[in-house]
């Protein structure tokens, strides 16, 4: 189904600024968010819903941490590594955070080149983003392995409150799943970009719809969201 017109003919394209503009858009016909495609609107609303999921996870974790009577393990110590004889707290997490934030940068560049219809650069930058995301997940797997070797389990750990392990595996696992899905979709869309689907208007296999380069931006919205969530996890779980 073709999208309804992005601008209504017969109506002046100039829109009022500020709150008046918002009111005008919402009281107009056809679409509340002018010039926002269906896909982008859907991703924003999905992210709003997903925000509530992560908020519930983090709030539950904070409740557990605040109400426990057993000491909470010190994250700086738990997540410290010995590198070249130096004991560096949180070093792995710092690197992981750096990598994930950098991937947001490459993603933003991919979106930019997508709108310039630069097929090759867009695809390459998306693949770089996917590679950085995969590195992040790999480092997380390393972190999980290390903790499991040290005796951390979802139901217990050697240093204190059992909820430490439970919350850690649940929250980072849920976030890691988000990153993994992001990597898979990045690769799938990069393939479509590379093949030129969005230049030739090739129809989707299931949907029989023609895609366009906007999907790169929608993918970017998801990716930036996953990064933003990580910032909160980093702050509330590791830095607290």
């Amino acid at each position: 189904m073709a999208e309804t017109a992005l601008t209504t003919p017969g109506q002046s394209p100039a829109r009022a600024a500020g709150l008046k503009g918002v009111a005008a858009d919402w009281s107009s016909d056809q679409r509340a968010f002018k010039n926002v495609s269906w896909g982008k609107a859907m991703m924003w609303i999905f992210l709003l819903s997903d925000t509530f999921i992560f908020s519930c996870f983090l709030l539950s974790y904070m409740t557990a941490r605040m109400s426990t009577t057993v000491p909470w393990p010190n994250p700086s110590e738990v997540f410290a590594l010995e590198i070249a004889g130096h004991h560096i707290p949180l070093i792995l997490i710092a690197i992981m955070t750096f990598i994930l934030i950098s991937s947001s940068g490459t993603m933003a560049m991919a979106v930019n080149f997508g709108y310039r219809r630069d097929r090759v650069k867009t695809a390459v930058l998306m693949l770089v983003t996917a590679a950085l995301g995969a590195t992040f997940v790999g480092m997380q797997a390393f972190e999980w392995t290390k903790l499991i070797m040290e005796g951390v389990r979802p139901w217990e750990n050697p240093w204190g409150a059992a909820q430490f392990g439970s919350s850690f595996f649940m929250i980072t696992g849920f976030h890691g799943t988000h990153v993994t899905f992001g990597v898979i979709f990045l690769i799938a869309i990069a393939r479509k970009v590379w093949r030129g689907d969005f230049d030739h208007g090739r129809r989707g296999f299931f949907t029989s719809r023609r895609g366009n380069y906007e999907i790169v931006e929608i993918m970017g919205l998801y990716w930036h969201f996953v990064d933003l969530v990580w910032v909160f996890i980093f702050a509330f779980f590791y830095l607290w």
Partner: protein
Amino acid sequence: MVDVPYEATVDVPPAEVPEVELYHPKSWWTQYVFSQDAKVIAIQYSLTATAIGLVALVLSWMMRLQLGFPGTFSFIDASQYLQFITMHGMIMVIYLLTALFLGGFGNYLIPLMVGARDMVFPYVNMLSYWVYLLAVIVLASTFFVPGGPTGAGWTLYPPQAILSGTPGQDWGIILMLSSLILFIIGFTMGGLNYVVTVLQARTRGMTLMRLPLTVWGIFTATIMALLAFPALFVASVMMLFDRLLGTSFFMPALVEMGQQMKYGGGSPILFQHLFWFFGHPEVYIVALPAFGIVSDLISTHARKNIFGYRMMVWAIVAIGALSFIVWAHHMYVSGMHPTFGFFFATTTLIIAIPTAIKVYNWVLTLWRGDIHLTVPMLFALGFIITFVNGGLTGLFLGNVVVDVPLSDTMFVVAHFHMVMGVAPIMVVLGAIYHWYPKVTGRMLDDWMGKFHFWVTFLGAYLIFFPMHYLGLLGVPRRYHEIGEAAFITPSVHTLNAFMSVVALIVGLAQIVFLFNLVWSYFKGRPSGGNPWRATTLEWQTPETPPGHGNWGKELPVVYRWAYDYSVPGAKEDFIPQNQPPARRALQGATP
């Protein structure tokens, strides 16, 4: 002056739709089974929800048999009784009402009422149904696993939900939580569709303030569901971990069967907060679509514009927003701080204001209307009466001091069955009688419909009204057998037996309804495109039932709001939303 139709806009050319990128079915399978057409998905949702709802109906019979005639039926023991109440509640609230209102009515009505060809993402919409079906199958499978379904009560409170004293501890609770997680995933896919379709895919002239209230109700409820289900999702995941991995999110240190369990340090109250952060909005996720639909039924069948349309819209939005800050009124007896209770009692009572506005507006719409006592109208009137009753007892229970003695008594059961059981079901049934002609092209039989209404309405009242009395006496809920106690008067037993007999009759009356659905599909009177002479767009489709893509070549153009009934000076007593204003009136209207 009287010639100018209310709120009509000037003439605009119809929207050009140059390229229709609908998915066109290529085979029988993609047309009827793996269909991407919202109308087919709606029917799939409705049939699945009705099927599992009938299971829940039979479960309620079992419970009533036990309560009415304790000790008579050897096949209902205490564990099974708990399993029945759990499955009955969970199925009715989530798998029947939520799925039917949003997945069923939402899918069918939203694209037609806003003038779209389909939902915005038909493929995702199809997936939504199949994941929902999977959730229903997983849920139904718990009847056949060792240990049977969980008996934790529909609220699934830990720690008892996963302890060995509760039936269904082996498989039931695991499958129940998995089914809920699946349901939420499936619902999210559908819900995103409904919201984006309403926001971004309306036809020309269809502003938000011209939407029929049905769409407003479903739209607001969907947004609420997208924000409330995450809490249930998280709670389900965490409890699943508690059960499967032995984590202690919700589990305090416990001694079970004389043995110290491995759990320790978790908070059962945390689960209650998460559950009710979902659970209270859930009440309105069921109620708001009912509010919306009933407004349209009343307006259409009383041939009168809805009273205070804008007020109605803002009341829906206000109820939706407020329902997120009242959840702890379900937890007054959990030992929370009195100040906390005071806050939640206040917000709860504030919700009564927009709700009362809605009730007044329905009544004022009826006032001096040309009321046709059709079957949908009867059900709409039945809704108002049961809803007012349930709403008033809600005011009782919203107050901490009144709630504490009434908590966990039959009074609570009576309250929520009136307000979110019977009342929304009244609307569901009325809506089916109202829209069945559009779905099938045939009218449902009127005589059977009226019989169905009177038995269901009076019967439901006779079942649930005496329960208030039982509750005031202090009869507890969820008890397999109340036995002999000083406060259990003989009238309690008499009433229990009476309610059980009525429940059986009301349940049996639904067979008439089901028969009516099937019989009328083949033998019903052909309805034509617009049997109720209604204004909204779904009645103006070129074909009945609407074809693939809903509209012919051109999308309809909307010129007016949805409630132009009995406009003074107009030729007929209704003016469809897509009827352009008359030339003469137009010249008078434009400066």
